[in-house]
């Protein structure tokens, strides 16, 4: 067994980094210059500072967005800035996410020459840090890196050198839901490097901020699994010296369950940091609007975006990540993205903040989720291994960590969830995921009368997945 501990800090980081810097994709990178650049960047560009100095009570707003060419990315960033986004996103293309920089570069070159869009995001490694700095020279808000990369070491080297101060991802949240084959142990070690690099770039008043991706597959993932993965990634980052970190989760379909999850996630995250002696880590909470299949009708999509904004305000999230009414169709236009921001702003300006509103069901849900999460976290730390990343790896291999509908071949796929009559996600079959008999009993009680309604599980699952359509 292994507990999170500051001594798990990578000891020979500078040697490790020297080896990575030999990558041909990093040959233009002067790390001394890059670290100086970041240490002198205006404080308004730091996510950690913006979070710390937030005056308004409503969540900060972040859209998504990334395109292949410099000019189009510049236009998109300006449009999002003008629409009032508090964070400017940089979403990376899928070739770069799979470390296929050569192909991404070839397609980027054709895209630039022929003014075409052949990539589904911004190929940051291909463009490099020098040109990417130019994207943001007139922007006084933090830039957030959004991707899905099991090995993001090269990508994050370039992101930080570009002045991007918020790095999303983690060894589990960016491997199990995003890859079929990438070895989980390697993903965990790669993300140790990223965490440590973020700590190395952090200076007084200019802390690099990390964020984990809680929606995971966004398909029937029970709150306990989200919380445990968020907390494991928070603790792994804290081990490497990260001082500012956001845990996150996605809208699940039940307002009661979302409210309960937010409370449980905050509580378990802080309790875990305290327990293992990480005293000086700032934790933020991020809420993602519905990440599942979206309605294609504009009115319905905007209804969904509106209610998600409302929930984000209710749970006092520090940030909301927004969708657009074009979600069902494909990559949204900058105009649609700006409309999404305006809709969320309207909700925040007119309906938030509010007083206490907790329902009894939501309070019961919170204590259930908290208990399940603590049981699972303990089980992970009790797995074989001399450091936490080894225990986490064992927990995945043994099916103790099991994410519904994750494509990865190491995922156990035995944890089965369905919705109860209030649309909350309930655990029907635990698989190898450890749960106390009391919690299993509570799950059963909360499902009462609903399970039998549809005799075929697969039909019920289909209905539960396409809840919002």
């Amino acid at each position: 067994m292994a507990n999170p501990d500051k001594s798990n800090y990578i000891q020979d980081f500078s040697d490790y980094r020297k080896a990575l810097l030999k990558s041909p994709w990093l040959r233009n990178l002067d790390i001394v210059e890059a670290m100086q650049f970041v240490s002198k960047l205006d404080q308004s560009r730091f996510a950690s500072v913006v979070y710390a100095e937030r005056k308004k009570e409503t969540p900060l707003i972040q859209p998504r967005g990334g395109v292949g060419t410099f000019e189009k990315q510049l236009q998109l960033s300006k449009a999002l800035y003008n629409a009032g986004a508090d964070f400017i996103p940089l979403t990376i293309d899928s070739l770069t996410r799979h470390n296929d920089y050569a192909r991404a570069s070839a397609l980027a070159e054709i895209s630039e020459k022929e003014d075409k869009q052949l990539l589904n995001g911004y190929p940051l490694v291909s463009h490099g840090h020098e040109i990417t700095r130019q994207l943001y020279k007139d922007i006084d808000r933090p830039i957030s890196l959004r991707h899905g990369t099991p090995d993001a070491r090269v990508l994050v080297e370039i992101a930080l050198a570009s002045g991007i101060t918020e790095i999303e991802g983690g060894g589990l949240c960016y491997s199990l839901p995003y890859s079929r084959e990438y070895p989980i142990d390697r993903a965990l070690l790669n993300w140790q490097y990223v965490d440590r690099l973020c700590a190395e770039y952090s200076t007084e008043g200019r802390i690099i901020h990390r964020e984990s991706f809680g929606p995971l597959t966004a398909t029937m993932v029970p709150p306990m699994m989200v919380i445990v993965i968020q907390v494991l990634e928070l603790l792994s980052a804290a081990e490497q010296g990260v001082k500012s970190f956001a845990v996150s989760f996605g809208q699940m379909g039940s307002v009661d369950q979302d409210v309960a999850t937010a409370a449980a996630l905050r509580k378990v995250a802080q309790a875990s940091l305290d327990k293992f002696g990480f005293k000086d880590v700032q934790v933020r909470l991020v809420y993602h609007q519905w990440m599942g299949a979206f309605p294609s009708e504009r009115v319905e999509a905007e209804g969904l975006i509106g209610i998600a904004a409302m929930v984000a305000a209710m749970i006092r999230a520090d940030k909301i990540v927004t969708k657009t009414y074009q979600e069902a169709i494909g990559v949204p236009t900058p105009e649609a993205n700006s409309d999404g921001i305006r809709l969320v702003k309207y909700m925040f300006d007119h309906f938030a903040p509010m007083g206490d509103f907790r329902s009894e069901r939501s309070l019961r849900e919170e204590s259930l989720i908290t208990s399940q999460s603590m049981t699972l976290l303990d089980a992970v730390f009790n797995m074989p291994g001399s450091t936490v990343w080894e225990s986490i790896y064992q927990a995945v291999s043994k099916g103790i960590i099991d994410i519904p509908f994750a494509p990865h071949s190491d995922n156990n796929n035995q944890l089965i969830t369905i919705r109860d009559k209030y649309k909350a996600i309930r655990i029907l079959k635990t698989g190898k995921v450890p749960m106390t008999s009391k919690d299993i009993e509570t799950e059963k009680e909360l499902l009462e009368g609903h399970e039998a309604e549809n005799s075929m599980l697969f039909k019920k699952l289909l209905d539960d997945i396409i809840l919002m359509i």
Partner: protein
Amino acid sequence: MGVIGHDIHVVSNRIIAIALREFGYEVCNLGVDNSAENFLDAAIEFEADAVVVSSLNGEAEHWCNNFGPLFKNADKEHVYRYLGGNLIVGNKPVEEVVDEFLKFGFHRVFHRPPNLDILFESLKIDMLNGKS
């Protein structure tokens, strides 16, 4: 059963596996990202009566155009072969798409079916007939 090609659409794959087991079939689920050869190898290894191939990203033609001959050459022509999902990019009459893919050596082809029932019904009929 499984998803063919560089296609990571796993949700419907898992649902079909759960459904087939609920209907009482023994299921070997290859998951996502398979070649036609993977299906043949599994059919041989598990002595399958049927293979159910899904494709959702519109690249089915490239991966499926030699499916029938592959099974024939391995002396596995008797294995029922189903293909379904979103088989092409863009819009073309469903019947045309179905005809095109039937020629690649499938017994039944479902292009953008409204639900999964058509697969389960066909499978039931074909398996009953096959046994008689």
